[in-house]
């Protein structure tokens, strides 16, 4: 086609990445087809299922509703950036341990969304978890084991935080709940 590509320089999971994309091409297609990161999935392409959840400058977004061109100069994280080397993020371990996935197609989106939740609110109630994850559809589990895995990961992270705090003075964590039901 005759459309001129847009040159984009961005950061993905901490790495500098450059790509050229079409002006109307969404970030999800860029990640999957140009950058080679297939963790984010397309379940709907219209922001209704959350399977393509990533963060953009720290905020949770659907990669299907962001243009690749918008990423210029911004920072993106995906499920591929959650583990630190061999060490899984507690959410990842707890999802396996609690059988919080069946088919697993929604799992990357849930993990990214749950991480954003716990970063913001380390001790969420069940209701806060359910509303924070309402943008992520799962058709296999009925959400039961997913909510439990997030609770367990929160507990794990809190224990780690206490341990770290004993060693050095803790940083104050900001917590902001979203809407009440």
């Amino acid at each position, binding site marked *: 086609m005759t*459309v*001129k590509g*847009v040159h984009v320089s961005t950061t993905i999971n901490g790495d500098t990445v450059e790509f050229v994309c*079409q*002006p*109307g091409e*969404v970030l999800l297609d860029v990640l999957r087809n140009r950058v080679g990161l297939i963790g984010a999935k397309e379940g709907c*392409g*219209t*922001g*209704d299922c*959350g399977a393509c*959840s990533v963060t*953009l400058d720290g*905020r*949770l*977004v*659907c990669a*299907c*509703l*962001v*243009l690749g*061109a*918008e990423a*210029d100069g911004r920072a993106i994280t995906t499920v591929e950036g959650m583990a630190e080397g061999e060490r899984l993020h507690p959410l990842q371990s707890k999802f396996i341990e609690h059988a919080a996935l069946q088919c697993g197609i929604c799992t990357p989106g849930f993990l990214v*969304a749950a991480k*954003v*939740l716990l970063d913001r609110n380390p001790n969420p109630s069940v209701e806060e978890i359910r*509303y*924070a994850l*309402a*943008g*992520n559809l799962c058709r296999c589990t009925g959400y039961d084991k997913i909510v439990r895995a997030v609770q367990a990961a929160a507990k794990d992270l809190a224990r780690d935080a206490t341990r770290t705090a004993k060693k050095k003075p803790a940083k104050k964590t900001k917590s*902001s709940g*979203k*809407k009440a*039901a």
Partner: protein
Amino acid sequence: MRYEAPTSTRDAVTLLTKARGKGLVLAGGSDLLVRMKGGFAEPELIVDIKRIPAMQAIKKTASGFRIGAAASCAEMGEHAALRKAWPGVVEAANLIGSDQIQSRCTVVGNLCNASPAADAVPALMAAGAKAVLVGPKARRTVAVENIPAGPGKTTLKPGEVIEAITLPLPKGRTGDAYLRFTPRTEMDIAVCSAAVCLTLGRGGVVEKARVVLGAVAPTVVLVPQAARAIVGSKLDDDALAALARACEAACAPIDDKRGTIEFRTEVAGVLAKRAARIAYQRAGGK
């Protein structure tokens, strides 16, 4: 197709004015990119306004609040002073979509998409919000209720963009609330909705009120008769019943995949009553 991300409102307006084909504004993208995906919008030019400083911030001013057109609804929820002054507006903004959508969607986008089911618009209208418009030749300020013209249509002139929404400071004992009905707890479009903003006078009597309904007519509608039904009352059962009747009378909805005429009409009244009670409490009424 071209993508541009100007850094001033003037540049944005110039780009849109000079576009060879259809030029469209990209704020949060939660409506535009869905329309593009479905083939319902095929712009020649996309103008991303998120790099325009005047459109980014939510500011408290001497006269109230200024919400930049590119400020996300999530940011509105995080703005403590705005939340305290206009809880109904913020709740309405925060009801749009999931957390993923919240990070991106804007109340100006919600307004310009001109859906009768827009969540933020009824609350903005009830609160007396105004839109700051910038066009090729002039700036103007317009009450929010004068923006929607019909489903998907606005009164914006060619090349005109909304730079910000302004909200006054709530006067005296004022409270606002917004409620919508959706079959699911999240991820739905309002089947119908109601926003109420009221100011109390002496003895908890409603002195002023604005009642707005969503998804019951081609645009979000201000219902002065419904406001009159509760002005002068202490929101007793009779006043609430009159409010519900006035709301039902103002409904001219359609039957569609999201709801029936009968349901929308009935529930609009129910929501208006419930929202009025919340607003009344927030205004300090008992």
